[in-house]
């Protein structure tokens, strides 16, 4: 800190704040021995010029906190000690999904306990990308309602796209299909092997009636849409994490990727 900075700090600490005490009024809102509520009502106050040389520069906090820094360093060490491989370390996904079993348009429904899953949800019409995605959600809705379920019960979605180029356009429609705290989601681009532009599978949770207890919060979502140091960036219409079935704690996480 500069000499000037030191002076400023000193001035702030030593400032006589009560020198003009008659210009503020203390109000006791509710008197209590332990934690009373009282506040100052500011009656008169004015602005004063300050010495521009005494303005301390703003300091940015470190990007990573202690624990994250530790993890980062450990990963870095691990990475640098790993033997360099010249061959491609990953297989291309489209080679794998060439063997995708289904090219039919019937969704598969399965239920086990409080959980249900619905896979192979596709559009029945596809005149444009928009109409295809809308049709996909129409198939989802009709399958859900045929099992007496609603989209609110969906907790996690796996979304397969032929191309990531469609990501923004698909998201624009996708987000209108859910309200606040939407399901967590993994979105994967498969490549030309995918038999539709978009294929979806969902995982849902609905407490069976006999175990239902009223007023009990059984679902919690972490949905941070703002920018912060703490939360993983929210680049699509999904919750970063959804916790359901609080007794037998099940946490669903959105797919995270370092970009």
């Amino acid at each position, binding site marked *: 800190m500069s000499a000037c900075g030191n002076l400023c*700090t000193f001035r702030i*600490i030593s*400032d006589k704040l009560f020198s003009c005490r008659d210009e503020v009024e203390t109000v006791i809102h509710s008197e209590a021995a332990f934690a009373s509520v*009282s506040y100052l009502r500011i009656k008169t106050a004015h602005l004063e010029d*300050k010495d521009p040389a005494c303005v301390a520069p703003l300091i940015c906090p470190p990007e990573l906190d202690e624990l994250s820094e530790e993890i980062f360093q450990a990963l870095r060490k691990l990475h640098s000690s790993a033997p360099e491989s010249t061959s491609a370390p990953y297989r291309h996904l489209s080679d794998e999904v060439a063997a995708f079993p289904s090219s039919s348009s019937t969704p598969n429904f399965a239920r086990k306990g409080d959980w249900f899953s619905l896979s192979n949800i596709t559009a029945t019409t596809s005149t444009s990308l928009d109409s295809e995605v809308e049709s996909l959600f129409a198939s989802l809705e009709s399958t859900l309602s045929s099992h007496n379920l609603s989209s609110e019960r969906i907790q996690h979605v796996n979304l397969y796209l032929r191309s990531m180029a469609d990501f923004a356009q698909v998201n624009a429609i996708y987000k209108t299909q859910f309200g606040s705290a939407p399901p967590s989601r993994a979105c994967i681009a498969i490549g030309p092997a995918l038999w539709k532009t978009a294929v979806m599978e969902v995982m849902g949770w609905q407490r069976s009636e006999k175990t239902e207890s009223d007023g009990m919060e059984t679902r919690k979502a972490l*949905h941070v849409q*703002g920018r912060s140091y703490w939360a993983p960036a929210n680049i699509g219409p999904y919750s970063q994490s959804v916790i359901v079935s609080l007794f037998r704690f099940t946490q669903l996480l959105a797919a995270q990727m370092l970009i």
Partner: protein
Amino acid sequence: MLSDSFVNNICRLLSDEIDSYMYQTVGHDAVHLVAEAMGIPLYRHVITGTAVNQASEYGSRLPGASQAQDKGKSKAKDETEDLYELLLQVKKHHPDVEAVSVGAILSNYQRVRVEHVALLPDINMVPLAFLWQRSQRELMDEMIESGLEAIIIKTAGAGLGERDLGKTLAQMRNKFHLLHEKYESHICGEGGEYETLTLDSPLFKRRIKL
């Protein structure tokens, strides 16, 4: 973008001291000075709603239903909708505003509601919540070191009282630590233990003198 967000940052909802889940109301009589000290415009709006929805999430989980557009259905107005009206007013005067800053450190309650309003189609601002989940101990020290001078203007927490009014954060720092150890009070007042008024900060072009 920074100066844009400050415009919003300075929006305060005007009311006498009331029990609000969302807003600080005490000290509103000096808020205009904060705006003047920073040299940016101030927009105000009177709180007309109350904390109707006190759940951890805000808005319907059903698609397409925003609480703001859904007003006709419920009789009581939630205080979150006051923020919508205020931001709409800001947007009208400054169509180029891109972001809205929320100072929540611990409260999911506040963050979720500001995000909900900021991302409504006719507001469409990026919510910035860079203080969220920061360590309150670290943050308090950073604020003091940066030359931010804020005084306690309301106390409502265990071990705090009238004698603490008017003291600066630097003067209160050790006491906050003590109360944290004793009662698990929040060092940055996130439990509503106290409210402050900022008299000077590195962002102030002039300082407030009481």
